[in-house]
């Protein structure tokens, strides 16, 4: 593929380009990388590559296999922070292409690792290479979407980031189907599934690469005029990525995202054992898996619903809803467990997880409101380190508190109550940070020319 095809200059949309082609291009990429949430479907098969029906001597153990996903999430955060400015400079097409190579290539390197039975190759393949693909792909379309939809930035980024939540819904049954298809009397079919998924995901991401366009400098949607009286927290100025992290607003938003994600990710990882232990004898492992699936669905829907809602009620107000409603729901969960209402328990968690997803999809538009569109993709990349921190902090918090209580004689059904109240406290910290949010001091504003702020635009619809 020629480098000129991938360059930013050759990605500028011509007259008549329909901007609604950009969200499905972004979705094509995010639906693929959302596979990461379903990686656990490979955990058990990877521990039975030799023994087939059960782990045999020489097979990898679950704890070591679990590191593959953890490494991928760490590299997601690191690569989005490190490559954020590069993504802004080269544009969405080249960065999406590189992410497709990394993500698809990660599967292929891992397949070699399975063939050679070398776990370090899976760490390197899916973990490091795939993780970099995840990070670059996650931020690639964000600033482009914000520039195409200045009138509805929340809805636009919500659509793309919804794909990251939805990717697991596709990947989980797809992985199971492929492993079943490739399984033989002597193989679990994992190697062939990795190769197939690597190729499928690369090709699907290429649909996004070919379709994506950036708007011409100065382009605006037809008939849309920016408000002459912007809201208090919506800036018309710009802050560069190099300066943004020195502002208190960046760190307040970092905390807002970190607290919202910590509260959600902690219970997301423990959803299956939690519902079984809170409703002993009534919820089996199979119905618990249904609960996990339902949470994934609400994780996806929340990303679109809440980000779109934020276009109407404002970004800060949307996070107010996440935190206040989150505190209410978390504080009610022990009561729902106490009265034995599975429906209320499931309902509360569906709302909580929808707001967890919403937190991810609303943050790009919040960043655009505070720092402008200039380098919002790079700033978003840097902010995603909050996700990496929460990814470690959340599950550790939930697991250790639960283990501590059980070790001190608390019945399993009640062991989650204190965890829920700690989640409330985390959300309270997030709420305070959100309330403290103010417009950026003008001394931080970018004074030079901004590449996208140019003369009157073309006539894309």
């Amino acid at each position, binding site marked *: 593929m020629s480098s000129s095809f991938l360059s930013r200059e050759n990605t500028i949309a011509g007259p008549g380009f329909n901007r609604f082609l950009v969200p499905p291009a972004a*979705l094509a990429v995010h639906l693929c990388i959302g596979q990461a949430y379903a990686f656990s479907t490979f955990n058990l098969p990877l521990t039975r590559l030799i023994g087939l029906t059960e782990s045999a001597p020489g097979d990898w153990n679950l704890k070591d296999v679990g590191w593959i996903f953890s490494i991928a999430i760490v590299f997601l955060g690191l690569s989005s922070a490190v490559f954020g400015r590069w993504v802004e400079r080269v544009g969405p097409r080249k960065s999406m292409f590189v992410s497709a190579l990394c993500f698809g290539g990660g599967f292929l390197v891992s397949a070699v690792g399975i063939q050679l039975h070398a776990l370090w190759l899976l760490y390197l393949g899916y973990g490091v290479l795939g993780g970099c693909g995840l990070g670059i792909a996650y931020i690639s379309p964000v600033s482009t979407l914000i520039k195409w939809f200045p009138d509805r930035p929340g809805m636009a980024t919500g659509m793309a980031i919804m794909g990251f939540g939805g990717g697991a*819904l596709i990947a989980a049954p797809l992985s199971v189907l492929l492993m079943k298809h490739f399984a033989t009397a002597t193989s679990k079919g994992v190697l062939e599934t990795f190769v197939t998924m690597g190729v499928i995901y690369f090709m699907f991401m290429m649909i996004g690469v070919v379709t994506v366009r950036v708007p011409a400098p100065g382009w605006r949607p037809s008939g849309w005029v920016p408000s002459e009286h912007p809201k208090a927290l919506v800036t018309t100025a710009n802050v560069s990525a190099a300066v943004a992290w020195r502002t208190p607003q960046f760190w307040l938003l970092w905390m807002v995202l970190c607290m919202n994600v910590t509260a959600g990710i902690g219970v997301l990882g423990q959803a299956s054992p939690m519902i079984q232990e809170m409703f002993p004898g009534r919820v089996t492992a199979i119905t618990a898996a249904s609960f996990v*699936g339902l949470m994934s669905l609400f994780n996806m829907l929340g990303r679109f619903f809440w980000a779109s809602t934020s276009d109407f009620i404002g970004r800060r107000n949307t996070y107010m809803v996440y935190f206040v409603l989150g505190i209410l729901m978390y504080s009610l969960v022990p009561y729902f467990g106490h009265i034995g209402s599975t429906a209320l328990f499931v309902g509360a968690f569906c709302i909580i997880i929808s707001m967890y997803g919403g937190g991810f999809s609303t943050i790009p538009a919040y960043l655009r409101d505070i720092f402008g569109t200039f380098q919002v993709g790079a700033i978003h990349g840097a902010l995603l380190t909050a996700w990496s921190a929460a990814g470690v902090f959340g599950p550790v918090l939930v697991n250790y508190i639960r283990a501590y209580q059980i070790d001190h004689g608390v019945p399993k059904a009640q062991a989650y109550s204190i965890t829920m109240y700690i989640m409330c406290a985390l959300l309270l910290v997030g709420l305070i940070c959100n309330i403290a949010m103010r417009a950026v001091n003008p001394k931080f504003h970018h004074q030079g020319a901004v590449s996208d702020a140019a003369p009157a635009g073309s006539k894309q619809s």
Partner: protein
Amino acid sequence: MKTRLGIMWLVVGIPLLWGAWNTLQNALKLFQ
């Protein structure tokens, strides 16, 4: 352009709906 737009939304929409439908079918077991 409208045909291309329709095709693009179908390409991403069909797998997404397939995944959501699978999940919903499994989720119904919770309330049975």
